């Protein structure tokens, strides 16, 4: 399993727009993605779950990846987070 932690820098946090873009990346890929904030972990199956974390600026979130495309997808998600959040 691959994973990385990320501290959100964007003032709005993971709101609808980035959640939508993130989900577009993940959708249809051969990989199970989970997101966690603190002790709450949700399977990343859509925009609602990740938004339900209420991740704001300064919060640390953990993405974990399991599956054939885990490493490639992690690199993409990480790049997206760094560029947008």
């Amino acid at each position: 399993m691959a994973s990385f932690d990320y501290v959100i820098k964007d003032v709005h946090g993971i709101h609808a727009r980035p959640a939508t873009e993130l989900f577009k990346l993940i959708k249809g890929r051969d990989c199970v993605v989970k997101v966690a904030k603190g002790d709450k972990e949700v399977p990343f199956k859509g925009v609602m779950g990740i938004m339900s974390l209420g991740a704001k600026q300064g919060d640390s979130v953990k993405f974990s990846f399991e599956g054939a495309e885990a490493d490639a997808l992690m690199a993409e998600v990480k790049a997206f987070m760094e560029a947008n959040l």
Partner: protein
Amino acid sequence: MVVYSGKSVFGGIAIGKICVYAKEDSQVKRERIEDPEAEIKRYHEAKDVAIEQLGVLYEKALKEVGEDGAGVFEAHQMMLDDGDYIDSVENIIRTQSVNAEYAVAQTGDQMAQMFLDMEDEYFRGRAADVHDISERLIGVLSGKGSGGIQTDEQVIIVADDLAPSETVQMDKDKILSFVTVHGSANSHTSILAKTMNIPAMIGCDIPLDDTVNGKMAVVDGFEGKVYIEPNEETMAAKKKLYEEEQEKKALLEQLKGKDNVTLDGQHINLYANIGNTKDLGLVLKNDAGGIGLFRSEFIYLGSQDYPTEEEQFEIYKTVAQTMAGKKVIIRTLDIGADKQADYFALPKEENPAMGLRAIRICLTRPEVFKTQLRAILRASAFGKIAIMFPMIISLEEVKEIKGIVNEVKTELDDAGISYDKNIELGIMIETPAAVMVADELAEEVDFFSVGTNDLTQYTLAIDRQNDSLEKFYNSHHPAILKMLKMIVDAAHRHGAWAGICGELGADLTLTKDFLAMGFDELSVSPGRILPLRKIVLETDVSEYKKSLNEANP
């Protein structure tokens, strides 16, 4: 006559009958079904239809309110495709053997509640989106439409709140005004009202029943009031206001195509400021003589990595071609301070307004700068482009910039790529230092354009984003007006022209003064061009100068 007040989000007068927009009653019944798998299939089909509907609404909204306003429909599509939502609906149908409508309503309520329980206001607001998509699904499943207005005449729409999916479906020709009980100033409804140029109010305590429905009313978007069955006196006053408004609009229409010449023959160029290629339609519609400020930073801010020469070239070329020979002044990269792009990885600064920004970034990272210059120069072969450099403080900077421009030109020559060899180079005057050395700078460039926002902030030492300093802030401060005069004079002494592209340029109370100072150009947001032209056409500059001299002998 009954009067209700609210918060105006767009001015104007509307007179007509009220149509209360009521959402269709979406009471969902719980029904037992025999074949859960067939019901799940029915749900998936409805979901696909709903996603398709949202795609249509997205395209429609894109045309009506632009990308920012349309984004919500894409977000709604994603919500319909949400794995947790789908799992929950399927699970309820399967375990309880109930109809899809009921399962969707249950899921929608649960998910909405999850958002409502969150601390942050933004996330709580997403509950409305969950309701909106759930209602859409139920509408598709039950074969019902999703409300609407049935009317043949133009009406004032009164509603509790309007979801984007509701406003976008309305026939825009039938709408005189929007009045809502809830809603925010940045809502889709407000954006739509501004785009449609019709008065709109939010936060209005108006009842949504037959005491107002179908009644004659006046919406005054200037004072934020709705008059139901206005008395004769009010009606007459409002009608007069309405007619004045219409006259003003018509007059502005008449001003299109006219030269910007004063009564005594002084000419001034009125150009438009734009921050996106999407604004080009407005530039042409408002009859701008050119583009006086093309803020190139949107290309950088909307990107996840440095935009390539090719990407930039295509954009600049489109603008140059659309303007068909009219001047397009492209300002080079102006980021830093309040405009940040992560991939630049700029260090965090204590005082970003005075930090590594604009031309300072370009001169620190010449490769980034040269990529942009190459793209602009290549595009200059397709129209009339000029280049403008922001945040200049010294002659050395200007010389260094010109050196880099020449390097790029030589590279293009060597590669046999064509560009406009006589392309104009200008600088923004937005620091007091640039004003003080304006004579030296004018020797080196073809034009000056004054960025009044930064010039004022640096001259008065007042952060314009700090509300508590409002009482000290004076955009007409004599120091600024004196500087403006110094800038024009210095430019003219050295054969350069001078313009203003900051907010002050659109200040109609100063237009005569700018003419008297001798400015050659004002660049303003597209909607301000025709009001400016009206003043120019009505002004006699020599008379005005005389009156100034008499007032201050």
